[in-house]
Protein backbone atom coordinates (compact mmCIF):
# COMPACT_ATOMS: atom_id res chain seq x y z
CA UNK A 1 0.00 0.00 0.00
CA UNK A 2 1.06 3.54 -0.68
CA UNK A 3 1.96 5.74 2.25
CA UNK A 4 3.44 9.08 3.17
CA UNK A 5 5.42 10.05 6.23
CA UNK A 6 5.84 13.50 7.71
CA UNK A 7 8.67 13.04 10.21
CA UNK A 8 8.17 16.36 12.01
CA UNK A 9 5.11 17.08 14.11
CA UNK A 10 6.08 20.74 14.27
CA UNK A 11 8.41 23.13 12.47
CA UNK A 12 9.37 26.52 13.88
CA UNK A 13 10.88 29.23 11.70
CA UNK A 14 11.43 32.95 11.96
CA UNK A 15 9.63 35.26 9.57
CA UNK A 16 11.75 35.98 6.52
CA UNK A 17 13.74 32.76 6.82
CA UNK A 18 13.36 29.88 4.39
CA UNK A 19 11.12 27.04 5.48
CA UNK A 20 11.04 23.33 4.68
CA UNK A 21 8.35 20.85 5.64
CA UNK A 22 9.45 17.29 5.02
CA UNK A 23 7.59 14.44 3.38
CA UNK A 24 8.71 11.00 2.28
CA UNK A 25 6.61 8.52 0.38
CA UNK A 26 6.35 4.86 -0.43
CA UNK A 27 4.57 3.89 -3.62
CA UNK A 28 4.57 1.20 -6.24
CA UNK A 29 4.75 2.74 -9.66
CA UNK A 30 4.82 6.43 -10.43
CA UNK A 31 3.83 8.61 -7.49
CA UNK A 32 1.15 11.26 -7.59
CA UNK A 33 1.99 13.57 -4.69
CA UNK A 34 0.13 16.49 -3.16
CA UNK A 35 0.47 19.15 -0.48
CA UNK A 36 -2.53 20.62 1.32
CA UNK A 37 -2.72 23.34 3.96
CA UNK A 38 -5.21 23.90 6.76
CA UNK A 39 -5.24 27.40 8.18
CA UNK A 40 -6.71 27.93 11.66
CA UNK A 41 -10.50 27.68 11.60
CA UNK A 42 -10.52 27.21 7.85
CA UNK A 43 -10.94 24.25 5.55
CA UNK A 44 -8.24 22.25 3.87
CA UNK A 45 -6.86 23.80 0.70
CA UNK A 46 -4.85 22.34 -2.12
CA UNK A 47 -1.36 23.86 -2.48
CA UNK A 48 0.39 21.94 -5.24
CA UNK A 49 0.87 18.55 -6.85
CA UNK A 50 3.48 16.50 -8.65
CA UNK A 51 2.31 14.18 -11.40
CA UNK A 52 5.12 14.14 -13.92
CA UNK A 53 7.62 16.49 -15.50
CA UNK A 54 9.80 19.00 -13.71
CA UNK A 55 10.91 17.93 -10.27
CA UNK A 56 10.33 21.42 -8.88
CA UNK A 57 6.64 22.17 -8.61
CA UNK A 58 5.32 25.63 -7.87
CA UNK A 59 2.06 26.20 -6.09
CA UNK A 60 -0.09 28.71 -4.28
CA UNK A 61 1.10 31.40 -1.85
CA UNK A 62 4.73 31.18 -3.03
CA UNK A 63 5.19 27.57 -1.99
CA UNK A 64 7.09 25.02 -4.02
CA UNK A 65 8.01 21.38 -3.59
CA UNK A 66 10.83 19.30 -4.91
CA UNK A 67 10.26 15.75 -6.04
CA UNK A 68 13.32 13.57 -5.41
CA UNK A 69 12.90 10.06 -6.72
CA UNK A 70 16.15 8.67 -5.35
CA UNK A 71 15.32 9.88 -1.84
CA UNK A 72 11.57 9.22 -2.23
CA UNK A 73 10.92 12.69 -0.87
CA UNK A 74 8.60 15.56 -1.70
CA UNK A 75 9.58 18.36 0.66
CA UNK A 76 7.58 21.58 0.76
CA UNK A 77 9.59 24.79 0.65
CA UNK A 78 9.24 28.54 0.70
CA UNK A 79 12.16 30.98 0.33
CA UNK A 80 10.85 33.50 2.86
CA UNK A 81 8.31 32.55 5.51
CA UNK A 82 5.43 34.78 6.57
CA UNK A 83 3.63 34.76 9.90
CA UNK A 84 0.47 34.06 7.91
CA UNK A 85 2.00 30.78 6.71
CA UNK A 86 1.46 29.35 10.18
CA UNK A 87 -0.86 26.40 9.62
CA UNK A 88 -1.14 22.64 9.49
CA UNK A 89 0.39 21.10 6.36
CA UNK A 90 -0.45 17.70 4.94
CA UNK A 91 1.45 15.67 2.38
CA UNK A 92 -0.62 13.16 0.42
CA UNK A 93 -0.23 10.39 -2.14
CA UNK A 94 -2.66 8.78 -4.53
CA UNK A 95 -3.47 5.14 -3.86
CA UNK A 96 -5.53 2.63 -5.75
CA UNK A 97 -8.89 2.20 -4.07
CA UNK A 98 -10.73 -1.07 -3.66
CA UNK A 99 -13.27 -1.74 -6.37
CA UNK A 100 -11.39 0.49 -8.76
CA UNK A 101 -10.56 4.15 -8.88
CA UNK A 102 -8.13 6.01 -6.72
CA UNK A 103 -8.12 7.64 -3.33
CA UNK A 104 -5.68 9.90 -1.56
CA UNK A 105 -3.78 8.93 1.55
CA UNK A 106 -2.76 11.80 3.83
CA UNK A 107 0.21 12.09 6.13
CA UNK A 108 -0.22 12.89 9.80
CA UNK A 109 0.42 16.57 9.23
CA UNK A 110 3.12 19.03 10.28
CA UNK A 111 2.27 22.15 12.21
CA UNK A 112 4.27 25.17 11.03
CA UNK A 113 4.83 28.08 13.38
CA UNK A 114 6.32 31.26 11.92
CA UNK A 115 7.46 33.78 14.52
CA UNK A 116 7.61 37.49 13.79
Amino acid sequence: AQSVAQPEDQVNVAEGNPLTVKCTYSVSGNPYLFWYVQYPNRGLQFLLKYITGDNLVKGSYGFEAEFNKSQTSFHLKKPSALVSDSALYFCAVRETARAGGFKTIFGAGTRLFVKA
Partner: protein
Amino acid sequence: GAGVSQSPSNKVTEKGKDVELRCDPISGHTALYWYRQSLGQGLEFLIYFQGNSAPDKSGLPSDRFSAERTGGSVSTLTIQRTQQEDSAVYLCASSFGLAGESYEQYFGPGTRLTVT
Protein backbone atom coordinates in the same frame (compact mmCIF):
# COMPACT_ATOMS: atom_id res chain seq x y z
CA GLY B 1 -18.28 28.91 -8.37
CA ALA B 2 -19.82 27.04 -5.50
CA GLY B 3 -17.52 24.88 -3.45
CA VAL B 4 -18.19 21.78 -1.41
CA SER B 5 -20.82 22.43 1.22
CA GLN B 6 -21.55 20.47 4.36
CA SER B 7 -24.37 20.58 6.85
CA PRO B 8 -24.80 21.04 9.66
CA SER B 9 -21.68 22.99 10.53
CA ASN B 10 -21.99 21.92 14.15
CA LYS B 11 -23.86 19.04 15.72
CA VAL B 12 -24.15 18.24 19.39
CA THR B 13 -25.81 14.95 20.19
CA GLU B 14 -26.28 12.65 23.13
CA LYS B 15 -24.47 9.37 23.33
CA GLY B 16 -26.52 6.61 21.74
CA LYS B 17 -28.35 8.84 19.27
CA ASP B 18 -28.04 8.56 15.50
CA VAL B 19 -26.72 11.45 13.40
CA GLU B 20 -26.70 12.25 9.70
CA LEU B 21 -24.12 14.48 8.08
CA ARG B 22 -24.64 15.85 4.61
CA CYS B 23 -22.22 16.75 1.83
CA ASP B 24 -22.92 18.55 -1.44
CA PRO B 25 -19.94 18.14 -3.76
CA ILE B 26 -18.89 20.46 -6.53
CA SER B 27 -21.06 19.98 -9.60
CA GLY B 28 -19.37 17.67 -12.10
CA HIS B 29 -17.08 16.01 -9.59
CA THR B 30 -17.54 12.27 -9.75
CA ALA B 31 -15.38 11.35 -6.77
CA LEU B 32 -16.47 12.05 -3.19
CA TYR B 33 -14.57 11.36 0.01
CA TRP B 34 -15.33 11.41 3.72
CA TYR B 35 -12.61 11.92 6.31
CA ARG B 36 -12.53 12.35 10.05
CA GLN B 37 -10.20 14.73 11.84
CA SER B 38 -9.80 14.75 15.57
CA LEU B 39 -8.78 18.02 17.19
CA GLY B 40 -5.65 19.31 15.46
CA GLN B 41 -4.80 15.86 14.20
CA GLY B 42 -4.39 14.20 10.83
CA LEU B 43 -7.04 13.04 8.42
CA GLU B 44 -8.54 9.60 8.82
CA PHE B 45 -9.97 8.24 5.58
CA LEU B 46 -13.48 6.87 5.98
CA ILE B 47 -15.08 6.16 2.61
CA TYR B 48 -14.70 6.96 -1.10
CA PHE B 49 -17.31 7.08 -3.84
CA GLN B 50 -16.35 7.06 -7.51
CA GLY B 51 -19.20 7.51 -9.96
CA ASN B 52 -21.55 4.54 -9.90
CA SER B 53 -18.94 2.08 -8.68
CA ALA B 54 -19.24 0.34 -5.35
CA PRO B 55 -17.70 2.59 -2.70
CA ASP B 56 -14.41 1.90 -0.96
CA LYS B 57 -15.53 1.49 2.64
CA SER B 58 -12.20 0.30 3.94
CA GLY B 59 -11.80 3.23 6.31
CA LEU B 60 -15.09 3.01 8.17
CA PRO B 61 -14.16 2.37 11.83
CA SER B 62 -17.17 0.22 12.73
CA ASP B 63 -20.51 -1.02 11.43
CA ARG B 64 -22.15 1.95 13.16
CA PHE B 65 -20.84 4.06 10.31
CA SER B 66 -22.42 4.04 6.87
CA ALA B 67 -22.64 6.37 3.91
CA GLU B 68 -24.58 6.66 0.73
CA ARG B 69 -24.45 8.83 -2.30
CA THR B 70 -27.66 9.47 -4.16
CA GLY B 71 -27.70 10.16 -7.87
CA GLY B 72 -23.96 10.49 -7.98
CA SER B 73 -24.13 13.79 -6.14
CA VAL B 74 -25.18 14.45 -2.54
CA SER B 75 -23.78 12.13 0.12
CA THR B 76 -24.94 11.38 3.64
CA LEU B 77 -22.73 9.92 6.34
CA THR B 78 -24.73 8.24 9.09
CA ILE B 79 -23.41 7.34 12.50
CA GLN B 80 -25.66 5.10 14.56
CA ARG B 81 -25.62 4.84 18.34
CA THR B 82 -23.01 7.57 18.64
CA GLN B 83 -20.19 7.22 21.13
CA GLN B 84 -18.04 9.92 22.70
CA GLU B 85 -15.05 8.78 20.65
CA ASP B 86 -17.00 9.71 17.52
CA SER B 87 -16.53 13.37 18.42
CA ALA B 88 -14.46 14.94 15.64
CA VAL B 89 -14.68 17.13 12.58
CA TYR B 90 -16.05 15.22 9.63
CA LEU B 91 -14.70 16.49 6.32
CA CYS B 92 -16.08 15.87 2.88
CA ALA B 93 -14.11 16.40 -0.32
CA SER B 94 -14.78 15.98 -4.01
CA SER B 95 -12.68 15.82 -7.15
CA PHE B 96 -12.77 14.90 -10.79
CA GLY B 97 -12.48 11.18 -10.37
CA LEU B 98 -11.87 9.51 -13.68
CA ALA B 99 -9.67 6.44 -13.83
CA GLY B 100 -6.08 7.52 -13.58
CA GLU B 101 -7.08 10.70 -11.83
CA SER B 102 -4.43 13.11 -10.79
CA TYR B 103 -6.86 15.71 -9.61
CA GLU B 104 -6.67 17.48 -6.31
CA GLN B 105 -9.50 17.34 -3.81
CA TYR B 106 -11.66 20.24 -2.79
CA PHE B 107 -12.74 20.17 0.81
CA GLY B 108 -15.85 21.38 2.52
CA PRO B 109 -15.77 23.34 5.78
CA GLY B 110 -16.55 20.26 7.82
CA THR B 111 -19.13 19.28 10.40
CA ARG B 112 -18.00 19.45 14.00
CA LEU B 113 -19.67 16.59 15.87
CA THR B 114 -19.74 16.58 19.64
CA VAL B 115 -21.15 13.57 21.44
CA THR B 116 -22.02 14.27 25.06
